């Protein structure tokens, strides 16, 4: 791909997760690490002349990629095909236990995946004078080997070859960035510049307060009106659900704009997902209940009348109680975030010596 004057070539290794992904690309004078998170790609460049070391450590990595998930899904479809074939063969009088073979191959596949994840996996890090970054796309040893085969000639071309007794020489140097609060051996007394202050993010904005209030009040109203009339309960439910959806979307937008902390955004995502999950769960459960009732009923017209009023199903005390409980729990979590979220975070201990 050519972008301006830059042409990138993909290097071995690609991490395809359900949300996060990663890959490495080679430019004319640098490596480009691409980390993607669904709707966003972050780039980091490592110039050939700056790379100090690439270290690969064997480590278990139990990563389920989208590709392996697809294979698992196809394999489950194969089970249906095997069962169908077996049924057909049995109908013709040919007895054959193909399901047993399917299970045997499944166990072998799972065992292979576990073995590869434990014995053939690794963590790969790239070091420059100011950074130490993991390369997430390199998590299998054979991929890391192929990556090094492609990259090493470029680095040698840019920097030359390291001297033979480098183990002694490197002892007096700093590979990777300096740990916080220490200065390098090669530059004694050089003060390390303070890191730039992080952008001021908060958890308290009018929108986030309204969002948490809608969760708390909605949950409380649901629980208090569980036994109320269906028409009253329906309007309470719809009103608060719409308010919660609107404020949750606004919270996500405010986080994207850099005003809100990710914790409040996560709560908004959980609230949206729980609304969706609850809605479909209630519909499905109500569908099953209606089917059972229809099967027993001797009056089909009355049963049909219940089915054409989908919102009428939402006033079941159990479903509304669950909705209220979920709303109240999320509301308490949000209130906790609002009350505790303004405290400055404690400094994390770094072991990167």
């Amino acid at each position, binding site marked *: 791909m050519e972008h301006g004057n*830059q042409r990138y070539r993909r290097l071995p290794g690609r991490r395809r997760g359900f949300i996060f992904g990663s890959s490495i690309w080679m430019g004319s004078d640098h490596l480009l690490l691409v980390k993607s998170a669904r*709707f966003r790609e972050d780039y980091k460049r490592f110039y050939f002349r700056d790379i100090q070391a690439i*270290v*690969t450590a064997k480590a278990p990595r139990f990563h389920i990629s989208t590709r392996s998930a697809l294979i698992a899904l196809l394999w489950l479809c194969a089970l249906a095909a095997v069962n169908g074939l077996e049924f057909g063969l049995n109908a013709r009088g040919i007895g054959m236990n193909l399901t047993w073979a399917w299970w045997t191959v499944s166990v072998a596949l799972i065992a292979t995946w576990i073995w590869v994840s434990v014995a053939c996996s690794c*963590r790969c890090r790239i070091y420059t004078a100011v950074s130490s970054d993991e390369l997430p796309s390199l998590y299998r040893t054979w991929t890391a080997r192929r990556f090094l085969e492609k990259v090493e000639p470029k680095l040698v071309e840019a920097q030359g070859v*390291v001297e033979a007794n480098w183990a002694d020489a*490197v002892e007096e140097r700093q590979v990777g960035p300096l740990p916080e609060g220490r200065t390098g051996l090669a530059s004694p007394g050089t003060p390390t510049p303070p890191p730039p202050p992080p952008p001021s993010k908060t958890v308290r904005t009018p929108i986030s307060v309204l969002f948490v209030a809608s969760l708390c009040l909605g949950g409380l109203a649901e629980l208090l009106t569980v036994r109320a009339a269906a028409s009253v309960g329906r309007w309470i439910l719809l009103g608060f659900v719409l308010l919660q959806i609107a404020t949750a979307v606004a919270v996500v937008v405010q986080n994207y704009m850099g005003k809100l902390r990710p914790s409040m955004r996560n709560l908004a995502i959980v609230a949206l997902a729980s609304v*969706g999950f609850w809605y479909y769960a209630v519909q499905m459960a109500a569908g099953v209940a209606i089917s059972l009732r229809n099967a027993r009923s001797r009056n089909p017209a009355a049963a049909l009348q219940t089915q054409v009023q989908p919102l009428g199903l939402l006033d079941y005390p159990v479903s509304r109680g669950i909705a209220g409980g979920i709303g109240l729990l999320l509301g308490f979590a949000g209130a906790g975030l609002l009350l505790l979220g303004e405290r400055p975070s404690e400094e994390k201990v770094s072991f990167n*010596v």
Partner: protein
Amino acid sequence: MPVPCARCGMPLPKWELRNGEAADCTSCGSRNVVRLFPAALAQGAAALAEIALEGEAACFDHPGKRAVSACLQCGRFVCQLCAVEFGEGVWCPSCVAGSRGKAKPAKSEASRTLWDTCAVSIPFALLIVWPLTILSLPAVAALAIMKWKQPISLVRRWRWRFGVGLAAALAEGGLWVWLIWHLVAKARRGA
């Protein structure tokens, strides 16, 4: 400090590295394979800016350091520490931070929003609360029109996601049109 372990960050034992490029970490026990390059041994020399003597040009931000270049944008003198190779010239840190003068070169981009993934996700994400799917067609169409010509990713990426998103949104929009038409026809029959 020797090379850190890629798994736990603890220093790898020097006596093992002497024998080759592989070493077992004494902390986590992982087998590390180390590829070291000359930049690791040359560290520090380039980072030290020289002291400016009397009468010599000095850095704008560090008056005690000798200037080695002038910023391509603002013309301020910069020392070895402040000189940032940016595009085809040397920039000072403040001009790099503000991207002053001209548009940001592609090389300085740190992130991009993948609008094509947004376009393909909207119709399916809105299915969670299905009445909201009425918004998917206008949203995806607006996104596709506004962002079609913008570069998507810094690396190779095709635009088929816009097409899939538009197709899904069109299907949802078609269902909505059918539903509204059906309801209107039913209301007319009732009247």
